[in-house]
């Protein structure tokens, strides 16, 4: 009796398992061979970048924005960026052109790579004003990290960043020695939740950047730390990290005042 049951049950169990395993097996194959769409998408955006260029008309003022998400205007409810906001503040808007080559999430090394690759060369050559926002993502890594080995990591990343920034500046200067280059400093989006040690790191970061930037001719560092300190609520966008429209406006006003004198 016992022997009679064993074989059919084993057979049944194994048949059921085989069906399950076969379906799981087929599923695995379909999952891993899913056609990858992201690759094509990336190519698309690259083409768009190449089409961008300033018009040949020599009379216009051409503004180029390079860098990370803050350069690209992330968080701005009105969908503007610093360049276009700046143009809005000027009287002769019609003779102004802006091009934004910022990529959200770029670190300094990414910008060095794209400048060295030469794909931006033509645009850089024609620019009259270059607005540079970089370094935020480099530093964010440190500010977000747990407390362990903070200082060692910081020193590493800062020295890499300084090298990259120098590379960016020399890359820009090589192509274009007449344009004014503005470097936007970093603000503290975390407010008081950031401890003093990290705030010190942020300020030192800004200080080091400023020192480097100011050692070149036709380069200017614009601080934002003070602007945001007491205005986080209105200057930060909904994501509590990027500036809001008000925040961008404040930065642009400072830029305008610095370049055009107080009215």
């Amino acid at each position, binding site marked *: 009796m016992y022997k009679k049951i064993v074989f059919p049950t084993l057979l049944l169990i*194994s048949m059921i*398992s085989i069906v*399950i*395993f076969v379906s799981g097996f087929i599923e695995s194959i379909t999952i891993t061979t899913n056609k990858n769409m*992201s690759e094509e998408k990336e190519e698309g955006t690259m083409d768009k970048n190449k089409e961008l260029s300033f018009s040949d008309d020599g009379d216009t003022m051409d503004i180029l924005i390079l860098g990370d998400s803050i350069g690209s205007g992330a968080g701005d409810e009105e969908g503007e960026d610093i360049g276009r906001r700046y143009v809005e503040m000027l009287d002769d808007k019609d003779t102004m052109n802006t091009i934004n080559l910022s990529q959200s999430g770029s670190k300094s090394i990414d910008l060095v790579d794209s400048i060295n690759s030469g794909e931006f060369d033509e645009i850089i050559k024609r620019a009259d004003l270059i607005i540079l926002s970089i370094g935020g993502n480099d530093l964010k890594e440190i500010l977000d*990290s747990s407390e362990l080995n903070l200082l060692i*990591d910081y020193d590493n990343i800062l020295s890499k960043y300084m090298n990259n920034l120098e590379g960016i500046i020399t890359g820009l200067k090589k192509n274009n020695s007449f344009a004014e280059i503005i470097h936007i400093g970093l603000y503290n989006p975390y407010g008081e939740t950031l401890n003093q040690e990290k705030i010190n790191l942020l300020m030192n970061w800004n200080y080091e950047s400023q020192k480097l930037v100011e050692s070149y001719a036709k380069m200017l560092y614009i601080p934002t730390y003070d602007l945001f300190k007491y205005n986080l609520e209105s200057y930060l966008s909904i994501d509590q990290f990027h500036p809001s429209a008000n925040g961008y406006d404040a930065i642009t006003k400072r830029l305008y005042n610095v370049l055009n004198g107080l009215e």
Partner: protein
Amino acid sequence: MITLIRNEIYKTLLKKKIILITILLILFVGLFSYGENYIYNQRINAFLEESNQGDYSWENIANQRLERLKKNLESSYIPERGIKSIKIQIEQLEYFIDNNINPVTPSVARFNVEFVKQSVTLFLPLLIIILGADLISGEFSDKTIKVLLTRAVPRWKILMSKLIALLIMTTLIILLMALISTTVSRLFIDRLGFDEPVATGFQFVNGELSTGSVIRITSLKYTLLNYSLAWFVALVMSAITFMISTLVKSVGSAIGIIMASLIGGQFLQFFLSDWVMVKYFYVTNLDLTKYLTGSYQQVEGMSLVFSVLVLSAWAIASILISFFVFLRKDILV
């Protein structure tokens, strides 16, 4: 035919091999799950001591691991291959953190996946070898082949029933493995975690990890997928074991030959990963589960489909050879 298959299955059951396999499984699963839980607790303690914070969250631990990997990357002593592998781990970890998927806390589901992954290249083949190495060579060793062949059944039927019995037993072994690793690890690990999301479908585009086609499935399904792949590997292993068992006359040499090819294959893969032919060897392709997680592949140009095709070719060739040899062979006892 059915009677023949039944006889074969009873033969395997009577030989107490299943008991050996069960004991091995319980032993390994028990050790591993205890170890995993132990390490996890150690890590929590270490983390709490270092950070001086009252509580911990998996995000913190994941971030800590991320930092450590990044630091490893900066060391100049790591070879090119190691760097790529670390980079992939970093990208995956970042993806997990960004998408709120907990890769740290052990759960029964994750243990299952981990166990399959670790055992698929050596332990699982070993179990299959225990199961199948004496299938035909054992008949020679025990001199029972005479009795078997003098019955009024054609040779191919005998061989076919042995093959089918082996495949059924293999399937049952995988089922047994799933049962044991779920129940035994439950003793040590508190969380079941079968309903948690898991990310799979990582792909390589020009050597870079791409998250473009990553999808999220439940742990239960993910575990199932891993076992399905392990099942396929087990079938291929049993086909190869079956062939060796037909070719040699003693159980000892059958086990020796397969183990040698397995271990030799692992070495080959490690030392000669630049050699193109390596990827057509079956051992190189055994680790199918890595394609689900997107870990680094030592040999370029391999994908799940490729590995499955290579393994199938080996399995079919093995079965054909065994039939060809067994039907032609003069059996002198």
